[in-house]
């Protein structure tokens, strides 16, 4: 089915209806919350960062299928990656959702499914919200009481 079926393709439906990594990390070192005032979506992203590596990511969301799928795919994609890799992934997804060429031109894997939002400009914000929140979580000072309280700085 052309058109909207391209946005709601299998991977988006699957992650949107049965999202992975939902909930909180008891051991989160970083967290941030984000809102999309246009539609009322709200997301909280939590990360466990050890040194330069994101060990785990979880999220809680009140939002649409596209935002939920984006958050689920994101938390799967960033686990085990370095901060620099996560940042590069963030930039690549942001470019793809906006219909710009990807920096680096790499293969996004399952995240490529998010590219269909470029045909629905009003929905691009939905896909971008979890990623923007992830970026802010990484920039934020480590959570008080978190096990890893080293100042978070990206050398890249």
């Amino acid at each position, binding site marked *: 089915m052309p058109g*909207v079926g391209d946005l709601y393709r299998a991977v988006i439906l699957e992650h*949107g209806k049965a999202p992975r990594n939902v909930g909180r990390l008891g051991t989160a070192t970083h967290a941030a919350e984000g809102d999309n005032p246009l*539609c*009322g979506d709200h997301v909280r992203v939590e990360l466990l960062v050890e040194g330069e590596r994101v060990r785990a990511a979880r999220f809680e969301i009140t939002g649409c299928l596209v935002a939920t799928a984006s958050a689920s795919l994101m938390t799967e994609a960033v686990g085990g990656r370095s901060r620099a890799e996560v940042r590069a992934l963030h930039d690549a997804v942001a470019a793809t959702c906006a219909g710009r060429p990807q920096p680096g031109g790499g293969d996004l894997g399952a995240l490529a499914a998010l590219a269909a939002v470029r045909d629905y400009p009003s929905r691009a914000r939905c896909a971008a919200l979890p990623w923007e929140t992830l970026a802010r979580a990484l920039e934020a000072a480590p959570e008080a009481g978190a096990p890893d309280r080293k100042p978070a700085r990206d050398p890249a």
Partner: protein
Amino acid sequence: MHPLSPRPAAPPAAALDPRAVRRQFPALAQRVRGVRLAYLDNAATTQKPRAVLRALTAHYARDNANVHRGVHALGARATAAYEAARARVARFLGAADAGEIVFTRGATEAINLVAQSYGRSVLAAGDEVVVTAMEHHSNLLPWRRLCEQTGAHLRVAPVDDRGVLDLAGYERALGTRTRLVAVAHVANALGALNPVAELARLAHARGAVLLADGALAAAHVGGVDVRALGCDFYACSSHKVYGPTGVGALYGRAELLRAMPPWQTGGEMVLAVGDDDVTWAPPPLRFEAGTPPIADAVGFAAALDWLEPLAPAAAAHEQALVTHAAAALAAVPGVRVVGPAARVAVVSFVVDGVHPHDVATVLDDAGVAVRAGDQCAQPLMRRLGLPGAVRASFAPYNTSDEVERLVAAVGRARALLG
């Protein structure tokens, strides 16, 4: 002051041919995503008939000049057209005099004007402003801000589980310190029609004035009569009554406007500027600082020329579409129609397990334009326990065929995403 003759009684609503109406709207002839556009987002803004587009073009092509300034021919024509537009709005709203109409940027600015001019000059700490729980943010936030500025308290009259105003709760919200009441004439999110005349009577009995927000109502209740409503202020927007964006109107009772201080200051709103003193212009110009939206006011008047003869039939036609849509949507498994049983121009609904924005995207793909989300009424959505809703809203150019397309597309959204 230009006294207006009383309005003739509205003729009985003749049946309306939506296809004939439709042909007057160029924007409706297009296809989106390869399919015919079904524009069901009229509560957000209406499309514009050719008569309005022509009025705008003709004004700019022939009469363009600033108003109330130039001694030249074009200035005189522009001023005459702008003041004729004011008289047109006065007639449409049933005002006693054209001087009771202030042109604003829209309904939002009209409400802010009342809050900042009337409200700030009248309210003292401990006084009360009453709104309802169904208000659009534009008829809530100006009052919250006013209360912060003056130390007055905001009281919210409750609604029931269907979003209908609780009249007993409204009466309880009114008190001896109530100075001002602000209510939607028709609530934008659910289409509830408020009994403004009754609410005004109760407010007046306590010495308060009442502002009715007519942003949605103006085009959809078959005609507005501010004197029959008994309201003291009435706010509306041109773009929701088939006119251009960028202009709206505030009706204010003459004696209230006369006593109100300026809000914004600048050119046009002043008579004499001495070195140390200023004489403000009388209303309505006192409230129109700067060059007003002249061409848009002319277009606004053209829209009312177009709408007024049609208004009773349009309201009846919209009522038929609303009834059809509410029944057909309620019959789709997993769809819940929300809001009052008696709705004006609007049907709001939710689909089990599918976020309103996802529903709206599937509808957009089928060429059906609707609004989805909190409808700028977050307190109401919280009250009703909704994560937002999908809203279809109707105009005289909509057809029952478009209602069927809406219902089919909602079924598809449910099948695809539910």
